[in-house]
């Protein structure tokens, strides 16, 4: 992949000013290789459009100031002009932002070792609201409308062998609300897989509590049918020395918008946020993450990778990382990389890094969107490798970096196959 736009910054000890000037501008220039978009016939025409939106360092859009509320009425109706909705085609939300979400929610089926507690609870359960508070209208709409929630608890000090598998199967196209709470109590260790399948129009709130010293991995797979619409707020709250790894994989669905967040409540915690998405013609796959460094000495590392192919395939990645004044000793890095395989696809990538203290260990971000390059193809083919094989080699290699993070062999295999299937559909 040749970088068309790259931004890189690694700041050891920035000045105490709240925002880093000029980050948006960095890397806007085209690399000479791609400036003249070569149109050699080898790879077909793989020209991309890409934007780096504003938002970096614009005080008004500071993530700290965003409205949060459990009440739908507190959020104004969406116009599409809102900073956090500006890339989303509201028309395709199928009412998630306007309707009462009383359709049948995706069915929940949990497979877990006996050591894990699985409950279905009502709205008044004390664990509802323990990690999350809606940050947008669609999430608040689900909060107002869900009727029952699934609560998965990994008891204190329990180390779960194998993964906890949560299969969420869509029940049709009536707009619905879903609620899941995952609690990893102190010093527990577990892997939870949220496996979204079928057809649904659903707004989902996932609350994740990672207790002191707990190690939790949550993998959210979106392998929906083509007509699914899914908005998912996945908010995690981390205790002291907690380790949380979150992996979002979005492959299927007409519109999928995942908004993960991680909030630190005590020092010594670490989060890793990974994402993989592969958008086909017409698909809208959006990921907006938020890491809130509000206490000292926590670490975060973010890497999202996306591939796009086909007309009007659209992906959005927005990475908000906020290092508050109190968060001294923070170490954070976030990166997004996109690989545009065909003409007519669009990847938006916006890293937002806000730094309110100079006393940090490190902070950086990178964003690059490139297209599948004719030169790569020529090189591989000049070594006897047929075009299709060459293409797969590059894309598989690109996405594999994320798949490797999953470390659940069955899922890694399944996703590798899924990526192969996506690629097979490329034959244009």
């Amino acid at each position, binding site marked *: *992949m040749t970088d068309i736009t790259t931004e890189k910054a690694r700041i050891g000890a920035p000045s105490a000013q709240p925002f880093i000037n000029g980050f948006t501008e960095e890397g806007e220039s085209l690399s000479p290789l791609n400036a003249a978009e*070569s149109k*050699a*016939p*080898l790879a077909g025409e793989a020209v991309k459009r890409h934007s780096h939106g504003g938002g970096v360092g614009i005080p008004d859009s500071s993530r700290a100031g965003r409205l949060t509320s459990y009440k739908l009425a507190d959020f104004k109706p969406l116009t599409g002009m809102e900073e956090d909705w500006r890339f989303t085609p509201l028309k395709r939300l199928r009412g998630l932002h306007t309707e009462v979400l009383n359709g049948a929610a995706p069915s929940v089926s949990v497979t877990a070792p006996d050591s894990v507690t699985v409950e279905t609870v009502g709205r008044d359960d004390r664990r509802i609201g323990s990690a999350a508070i809606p940050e947008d209208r669609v999430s608040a709409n689900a909060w107002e409308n869900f009727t029952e929630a699934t609560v998965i608890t990994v008891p204190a000090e329990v180390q779960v062998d194998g993964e906890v598998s949560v299969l969420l199967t869509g029940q049709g196209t009536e707009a619905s609300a879903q609620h899941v709470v995952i609690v990893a109590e102190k010093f527990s260790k577990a892997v939870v897989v949220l496996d979204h399948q079928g057809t649904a129009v659903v707004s989902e709130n996932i609350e994740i509590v990672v207790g002191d010293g707990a190690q939790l991995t949550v993998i959210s797979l979106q392998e929906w049918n083509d007509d699914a619409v899914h908005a998912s707020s996945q908010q995690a709250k981390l205790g002291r020395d907690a380790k949380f790894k979150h992996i979002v994989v979005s492959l299927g669905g007409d519109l999928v918008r995942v908004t993960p967040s991680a909030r630190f409540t005590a020092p010594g915690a670490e989060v890793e946020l990974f994402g993989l998405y592969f958008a086909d013609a017409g698909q809208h796959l959006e990921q907006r993450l938020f890491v809130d460094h509000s206490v000292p000495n926590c670490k975060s590392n973010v890497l999202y990778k996306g591939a796009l192919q086909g007309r009007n395939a659209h992906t959005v990645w927005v990475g908000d990382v906020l290092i508050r004044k109190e968060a001294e000793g923070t170490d954070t890095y976030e990166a997004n990389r996109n690989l545009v395989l065909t003409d007519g696809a669009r990847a938006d990538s916006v890293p937002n890094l806000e730094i309110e203290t100079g006393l940090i260990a490190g902070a950086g971000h990178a964003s690059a969107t490139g297209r599948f390059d*004719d*030169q*790569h193809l*020529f*090189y*591989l*083919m*000049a*070594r*006897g*490798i*047929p*075009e299709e*094989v*060459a293409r797969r*080699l*590059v*894309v*598989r*290699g*690109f*996405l*594999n*970096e994320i798949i490797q993070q999953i470390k659940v062999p069955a899922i890694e295999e399944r996703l590798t196959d899924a990526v192969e299937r996506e690629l097979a559909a490329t034959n244009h």
Partner: protein
Amino acid sequence: MSTLEIKDLHVSIDTEQGTKEILKGVSLTIRTGETHAIMGPNGSGKSTLASTIAGHPRYNVTSGTITLDGEDVLAMSVDERARAGLFLAMQYPVEVPGVSMTNFLRTAKTAIDGEAPKLRTWTKDVKAAMAQLRIDADFTQRNVNEGFSGGEKKRVEILQLELFKPKFAILDETDSGLDVDALKVVSEGVNRAHAEGNMGTLLITHYTRILRYIKPDFVHVFVDGQVVEEGGPELADRLEEEGYDRYATGAGAATIAAADAAAQA
């Protein structure tokens, strides 16, 4: 015994200013066991010739032929040419992110041979070839050419030459950017491949330096898209002394021949 035959090759490229003819009638025959050096000033079309043989889509063949043992090379796709036994060591090897060297080498070898190499012997062969070219073992874990220095890239091209065992190797300025030690190591690699007796070599270079290590049987001087003079290894020595100045750019072979005749008269 194989023959790569280039006959009256005319090649042009499309530029913003329109079509530009770069090769203006090149003829060249290379047989197994022979080493041909093509020497010429910057911009004379050496890389164009190399890339055209390999099938780079940017170059349009407007007339002439390229055949490999009588087979029409121009009718083959890029990968078919490689599988037919043509290998181009590129002047500027391309970085391919996301693809490890191990994976790349095995995939290419499988494509060229039509079957996967036996894993145990293959791994051993790769290791041995890398050691001889003084390439660190950890390069296999890195992505193809990614972050390699200029010299490392060239070594890795020759590594592929040794592993893929082509019928004809076209080396496009493999010597450029190499220090003396690296030049020796790389030349030894080419000589080893040659010594196996199944390869012909087209060595493209701007300087005579590499010809101290790789002995050409024939030297062709390339100016402005044409071969303007041909001879044995002694021609390289002469170029070393005189440079390309006497082949005024734009002058065709006829002009040079006339000038030579006049000089002798």
